[in-house]
């Protein structure tokens, strides 16, 4: 077997006394969609925060395509092709949709006087993206995030990940506040990302959503990965729920 895209080995993370991650292992292959499940406080968000450089790990190692990496900040992870959509969809409420979409990766235009942004391009791309995630078309791209509904905000965060097609896209509960139409948009986005050669980690509490798209299900409990090779095509929702709640130890499909 060749080196996977991502390999996390015996990764631990403590917040003071709380052991949020206890020697968790995870691999993600090329063009693979992983569904990461687990109850509240299982450590899912912490795992992907470590992987995206948002918090430093206490111990353990991370490899990208077999090369050991050490992320000091999210920019490091972004530079390695890891793009993340956080659970609390980290948007700047005062800024407009367009500005949030391109924050940190603003397209520039000539003349490069003081790095001016290419507003025309930004707006064009934004309109297109908003349509793709199914946000209603009457919201102009320069609306401030602060006046959007919870679901609309989530959609903006998704649109951002769509645009910056990275090797690995991590989505922490992206469908949480989404309605029926928007959810369909996200799920189809995940599928098309895989089809064009990207990998995804998809965290969600709605197991039905996970079952619809992922190639492989990973379950966490109390900071550890307790099952990492559940095939959604050969397992029932109920069986996975039992693994999540720990009612049947190590039951896999």
């Amino acid at each position, binding site marked *: 077997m060749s080196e996977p895209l991502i390999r996390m080995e015996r990764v631990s993370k403590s917040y003071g006394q709380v052991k949020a991650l206890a020697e968790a292992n995870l691999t993600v292959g090329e063009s693979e969609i992983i569904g990461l499940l687990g109850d509240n406080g299982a450590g899912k968000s912490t795992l992907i925060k470590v992987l995206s450089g948002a918090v430093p790990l206490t111990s353990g190692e991370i490899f990208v395509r077999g090369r050991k990496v050490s992320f000091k900040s999210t*920019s490091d992870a972004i530079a390695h092709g890891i793009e993340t959509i*956080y659970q609390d969809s980290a948007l700047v409420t*005062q*800024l407009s949709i367009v500005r949030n979409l391109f924050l940190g990766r603003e397209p520039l235009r000539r003349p490069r006087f003081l790095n001016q942004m290419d*507003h025309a391009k930004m707006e064009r791309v934004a309109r297109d993206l908003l349509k793709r995630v199914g946000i209603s078309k009457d919201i102009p791209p320069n609306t401030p995030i602060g006046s959007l509904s919870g679901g609309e905000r989530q959609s903006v965060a998704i649109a951002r990940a769509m645009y910056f097609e990275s090797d690995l896209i991590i989505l922490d509960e992206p469908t949480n506040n989404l309605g029926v139409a928007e959810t369909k948009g996200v799920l189809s986005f995940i599928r098309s990302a895989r089809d064009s050669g990207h990998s995804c980690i998809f965290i969600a509490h709605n197991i039905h959503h996970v079952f619809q798209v992922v190639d492989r299900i990973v379950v966490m409990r109390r900071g550890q990965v307790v099952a990492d090779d559940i095939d959604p095509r050969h397992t029932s929702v109920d069986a996975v729920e039992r693994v999540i709640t720990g009612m049947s130890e190590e039951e896999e499909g």
Partner: protein
Amino acid sequence: MKNRFLQGLLAKAELGPLILLIVEIAVFASLNSDFISILNISNTLAFTVELGLIALAMTLLMTSGEFDLSVGSVFGFSPVLMWTLANSGATSLVVAFFVAILIAALIGLINGWFVTRLKIPSFLVTLGMLLVVRGLALFMTNGFPQRTWSASGAWLPRILAGEFYIGDFRVYASIFWFLGSAIVLGYVLTRTKIGNWIQASGGNPNAARARGVNVNRTKAGLFVLCSVMSALAGTISSIRTSAANPDSGTGYELEVIAMVVIGGTALTGGRGTIVGTVLGVLILRIMRNGIVFVGVPGLAYNIFIGAIILGMMALHSGLERRHNAGA
């Protein structure tokens, strides 16, 4: 593009201050006709643009969610340093000027370092820095004002604060510095990548960091900008008034912050407007000037300044509310 830029200028945030300014000028002009005399306008502008330079930089800094109480002390310190060096014969005036600017940049860098690396609130850091810099100025000069040889021939003083006459109307070169800075900084804030980063750093620093924005470097850079602009303003003021007093600039920090806030920039960061600041600068300085013209009793000066700030704020809030009606 041009059109959109103009449209941006007249966005809601600046409407309140603009109305305030117009009302203010109308009231004072109707009370005393000398108020809009050429002499008075020229007088008022001279000091206004010096404070304005600091306010422009402070706008960017406050948009990024920090503020700087040490600007007044740098305003006083830099010219004193420049003249001390030049008078001692150690260097030429031009070299002394650049040394003073460099030291100011260093002060800003230290502020930025304490705030971003040690995560100490900018209130405390810059309050401490205010005391240190003010103390340095006093200590270095033994408290004596520095001689400011009338430098009419030298090119640097001319460029910084030279006088020009347009008919009877006297303007100082500093007004071009102010206008130039306003245009450049307004452009930076609204049209460039850095401007986007500044707003994001103030609005939601965690989100900005998660997107790979270097929040710390952005803020530190703005602290440096703020100190350098204060030093520039202090030098200009010192050349214009031929005075270099170690204590000048005392209390400017609050006045400058008030200008920025009246202009519509949020005290809490994330939202800033250069056009608003230009209006805020004019509003406060014209108020100070107008009050003297209207002839309030000398000792009641502060009562009026304070009451008008409060009144304007009330009006401002009324206008805002009307604008956002229904929310």
